[in-house]
């Protein structure tokens, strides 16, 4: 795990872990960063061209990209013991991380921004309706065919990044550090190519995809969904003062995106990692990053579409909303604790004390992120 006094090897391992989990984050969060776009009306008024829209799409992901590059820089260069040694190797890995993240982000933006037409076809066509009825027979919960292109993008982008990290580590083992940059270069080239494809049709794609995400409301509430949706009485673990808010937010979040399935994939990835018997520090880092990854849900819940500013003020206080966003994260904590416990029983990596520490970190980080997120939301609306 990275600290200010880590060795160069630890830094490299930390960077790989960071890129590995960033792949999942990019794959998951990109559509929520881009669509629905509140500036679409302005683009219509100004009849903005492909250059303007392409630049705008990149700018919408600025905050995540900048944060990632700063983090990569800190992991590579944040060396308290010997800040000026191995500068060449540190710069090489900083370049690798930057190319990797930027390339994968480019691929993700391009794929999601072009997904509108296909998503609408599956959602609105007769073929989509047939598929929905067939899938409804096999699955407990209704699956909207319109979400299938997004799901495929999530798997492809996330998988591409994770495979890239693995191939880079294999190159490092076989040929040395410089060769670890090859997959990152490949991703950057592919990302550039994808964005140039998007650029040529960005206006058409932007309107098509934005329209789809504006109209994406999943299945109606009547019928099967009414039986499976979360009920207030099930929320025995929520204080009564915030129960109604937690219920309404969970209900909407569940309709908007399949958080449970995404987190299940995260658990499977960590189990896959544990199966390879990495160093204890590596696995602890993975659990900590995964714990943090859960809280992307808090950021997504800030969207006005779940509770507009006037409505939030009408029915709740700032303190309540901070507690609500922290509490919605508690529903994953038991699954996290059990997964970690069973994993450690089988693979024997993480002690009970450390498991307790990771759960404490999960709870404290949920509280901290909720506090920051609500403060930011209050200041900007």
């Amino acid at each position: 795990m990275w600290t200010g006094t880590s060795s160069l090897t630890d830094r490299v391992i930390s960077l790989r872990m960071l890129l590995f989990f960033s792949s999942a984050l990019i794959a998951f969060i990109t559509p929520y960063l881009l669509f629905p776009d509140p500036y679409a009306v302005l683009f219509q008024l100004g009849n903005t061209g492909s250059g303007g829209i392409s630049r705008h799409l990149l700018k919408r992901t600025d905050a995540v990209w900048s944060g990632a590059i700063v983090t990569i820089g800190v992991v590579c260069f944040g060396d308290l013991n010997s800040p000026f040694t191995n500068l060449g190797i540190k710069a090489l890995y900083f370049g690798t991380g930057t190319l990797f993240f930027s390339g994968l982000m480019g691929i993700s933006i391009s794929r999601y921004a072009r997904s509108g037409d296909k998503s609408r076809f599956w959602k609105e066509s007769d073929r989509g309706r047939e598929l929905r009825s067939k899938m409804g027979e096999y699955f407990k919960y209704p699956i909207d065919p319109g979400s299938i292109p997004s799901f495929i993008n999530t798997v492809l982008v996330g998988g591409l990044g994770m495979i890239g990290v693995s191939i880079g580590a294999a190159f490092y083992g076989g040929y040395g550090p410089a060769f670890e940059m090859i997959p990152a270069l490949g991703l950057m080239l592919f990302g550039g190519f994808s964005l140039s494809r998007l650029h040529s049709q960005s206006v058409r794609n932007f309107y098509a995809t934005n329209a789809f995400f504006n109209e994406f409301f999943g299945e109606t509430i009547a019928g099967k969904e009414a039986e499976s949706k979360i009920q207030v009485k099930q929320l025995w673990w929520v204080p009564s003062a915030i129960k109604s808010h937690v219920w309404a937010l969970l209900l909407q979040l569940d309709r908007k995106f399949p958080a449970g399935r995404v987190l299940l994939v995260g658990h499977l990835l960590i189990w896959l990692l544990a199966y390879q018997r990495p160093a204890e520090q590596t696995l602890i880092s993975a659990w900590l990053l995964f714990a943090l990854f859960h809280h992307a849900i808090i950021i997504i819940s800030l969207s006005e579409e779940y509770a507009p500013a006037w409505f939030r003020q009408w029915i709740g206080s700032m303190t309540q909303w901070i507690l609500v966003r922290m509490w919605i994260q508690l529903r994953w904590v038991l699954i996290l604790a059990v997964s970690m416990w069973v994993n450690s029983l089988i693979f024997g990596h993480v002690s009970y004390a450390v498991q307790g520490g990771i759960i404490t970190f999960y709870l404290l980080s949920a509280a901290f992120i909720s506090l920051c997120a609500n403060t930011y939301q209050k200041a900007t609306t």
Partner: protein
Amino acid sequence: MIELKNITKQFKAGKPIFSEVNDTFKKGEFIGLTGPNGSGKTTFLRLLSVNSFPTSGRITYKNMNIHENPQEYLKDVGLVHDQESLPVHLSAVELLEWVLRSRKLWSDESPKQINNMFDRLSLKDDRNEQIGTYSTGMRKKTQVAAAFIVKPNVLILDEPLRGLDSSTRDEVADMLVDAKSGGTLTLMASHTADVEADFVDRVLEFPLS
């Protein structure tokens, strides 16, 4: 019930929307707000709904400064906002359940009460669809229902009849009369002749002089 003391609001220094406004709104009173676009009606209602703060002066409700105690004040307020923004992934029925539960007003009778409200407003089967799929008029009906279901002491309504069909407008007018007879203070902004209706006690002409 609500008292305005020397209220001034300006977005830029030296350019007040209105200044030094003093007024008192009493229980059961129906105040109509009228005037051209940009004359300050919505800003006035936003101040009263604590979505905006005065540049100077204070507004009190039962001797309590509403901008210092927003949650305490809003417990007694029903709102129809100028925009039709609502949580889009809930149905209208679920939204009203949320509102009632968060105000500790939920009871076994509430589902029936909600359905009666939507029957009255002619929001038929769509009441169980997600709000994101609604038309402007359907969203307005949902907002009106959310404002009335809590049986508020104060109703703040910004263009509540905009986008509604004529039969629903009549129904909302009946609801307003019922609320007034129950002692609810109502402030309603409108561009149309609604503010000339019989139940309007007083009309505030904007811009306020």
